[in-house]
């Protein structure tokens, strides 16, 4: 079990049942469990969609798209069955929040899936959990069995006359599969290669049928919104950025952990007051605000409110909630290299700009970090990364390119310090040579 933390500034919506044994269905019921879905059964699809729209809930996976609007794209009539797909393939570096939801409050995700299904006219849902979260798949499978046993899932749920099935599905290790169309491909038993859009999943999704795909945290919020009301939820955050979110504080920070804070909470406050600042007498150098895909913010840029629109204005993204703090003992070039190594490894290989671009960028950064770089490499990296943007089937190409552009632009001096064979100033004892790679 993961360690839980707390801070007085937290507003507990999604995490309100954490640490209270809510994986046990009896306990979940005591804590207002399965009340929201029963309310939703009496609401009618349009009413549910409007409630979620008005709550200003936006996707918590990374893209931040309006959840209510996404649901409204599902056509009323459909020849093929409709589906709800919960994206539990949490793999964005810096992100460890869906893990806690699955560990501490799995039934809230099940409930969210059913309510989403009622909103769009689906009768089945899938909860896809990444393969490495084995113990969480065990917990979810038990939660599903318990819900079926009580008649909350299956035929005639809650005596409503409606049927609803929810199934668990496990992954087997692939970051790209967290992208919604690759997720569908994976669930269909194939390699996780993304699909070209349009058509969008809401119209043509799983097995050709309209499919609503939402992140686990997004779905876990849904029952709370149904019970507490759209107005209440929307007012927790700034305009068009309703609610709270789970922020995963990690990196060079005194008190790492997952904290639930209102949308719009100030990042500087988050680092110094919630996170306890930078330990070991070091100072802040940079922050990755929402997982590895987001351009970094320098220490001078952290006075920004953490909601989708404010962070976008600041040139980055709220993303997945993975706040990775970097101190002045870290080498930005090495950080950029490790980030690119990740994207090169995880690129599915379908699109040339991503497959070749990530590989070239990683090789250049390896050479650069070890002192073999040339001045023109710095501009070339930025130029190549910019040419990857918007030219791929899925955002992984953008996710690799944007942080690179950010590092090179904002920390150019540090890149220049690696030129002319100068050894990296930040090289630590014990890090040494990379391990020999036998096969991938």
């Amino acid at each position, binding site marked *: 079990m993961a360690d839980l933390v707390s801070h007085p500034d937290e507003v507990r919506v999604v995490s309100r049942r954490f640490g209270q044994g809510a994986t046990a269905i009896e306990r979940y019921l005591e804590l207002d469990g399965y009340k929201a879905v029963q309310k939703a059964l009496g609401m009618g699809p349009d009413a549910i969609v409007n409630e979620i729209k008005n709550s200003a809930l936006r996707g918590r996976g990374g893209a931040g798209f309006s959840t209510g609007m996404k649901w409204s794209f599902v056509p009323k009539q459909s020849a093929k069955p409709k589906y709800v797909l919960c994206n539990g393939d949490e793999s964005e570096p810096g992100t460890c929040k869906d893990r806690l939801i699955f560990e501490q409050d799995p039934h809230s995700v099940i409930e969210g899936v059913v309510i989403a299904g009622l909103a769009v006219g689906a009768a089945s849902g899938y909860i896809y959990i990444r393969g490495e979260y084995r113990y969480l798949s065990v917990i979810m499978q038990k939660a599903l069995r318990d819900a079926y046993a009580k008649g909350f899932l299956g035929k005639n749920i809650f005596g409503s006359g409606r049927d609803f099935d929810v199934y668990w599905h496990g992954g087997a290790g692939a970051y790209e599969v967290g992208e919604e169309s690759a997720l569908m491909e994976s669930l269909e038993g194939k390699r996780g290669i993304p699909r070209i859009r349009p058509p969008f999943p809401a119209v043509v999704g799983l097995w050709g049928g309209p499919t609503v795909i939402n992140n686990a945290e997004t779905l876990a919020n849904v029952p709370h919104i149904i019970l507490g009301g759209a107005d209440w939820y929307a007012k927790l955050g700034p305009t068009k950025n309703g609610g709270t979110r789970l922020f995963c504080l990690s990196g060079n920070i005194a008190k790492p952990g997952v904290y639930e804070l209102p949308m719009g909470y100030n990042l500087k406050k988050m680092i110094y007051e919630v996170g306890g600042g930078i330990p070991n007498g070091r100072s802040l150098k940079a922050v990755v605000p929402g997982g590895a895909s987001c351009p970094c913010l320098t220490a001078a840029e952290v006075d920004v409110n953490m909601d989708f629109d404010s962070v976008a204005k600041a040139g980055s993204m709220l993303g997945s909630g993975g706040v990775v703090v970097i101190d002045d003992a*870290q080498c930005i070039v090495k950080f950029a290299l490790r980030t690119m190594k990740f994207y090169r490894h995880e690129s599915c290989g379908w699109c040339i700009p991503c497959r070749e671009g990530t590989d070239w960028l990683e090789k250049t950064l390896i050479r650069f970090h070890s002192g073999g770089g040339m001045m023109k490499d710095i501009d070339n990296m930025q130029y190549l990364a910019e040419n990857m943007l918007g030219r791929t089937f899925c955002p992984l190409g953008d996710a690799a390119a944007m942080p690179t552009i950010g590092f090179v632009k904002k920390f150019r001096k540090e890149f220049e310090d690696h030129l002319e064979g100068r050894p990296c100033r930040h090289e630590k004892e014990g890090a040494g040579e990379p391990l020999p790679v036998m096969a991938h």
Partner: protein
Amino acid sequence: MLGNYPTERSALVPTLLYAQDEIGYLSDEVILEIAGRLKLTELEVRNVISYYSMLTTKPRGKFNLQVCTNISCMVRGGEEILHHCAKKLGVGHKETTPDGLFTLEEVECIGACSWAPAAQVNYDFHENLTPEKMDAVLDEYRKKATQ
């Protein structure tokens, strides 16, 4: 499980993992068997296996030690933990100790960022690691192997 999906093919990845759990890796025989049961060609199955990093067609040690060195773990000493394990066990990436106990792998983010540096052994999490703690974890598994 097949009844959970409208197409049998959807059961492929979970089935491969179940088989791998049983035997330790995906042997040629198992691949043919699964292909037959799901009415897929051997090529289609191998095609899928090669995509997913948890699936392997090579035998591994009893304990699969996977150390994360991605960004949150890296800045908190993840690489040092990896190199410590490599030295202690005398193996490199995806290599198995001669006694067949441990296979070491450097992996991407496992979702333990706020409890970094972290590793998994047969997908059980070991977090807030130090080299000393890592040694204790390895000893625990060595003991387990003799029971």
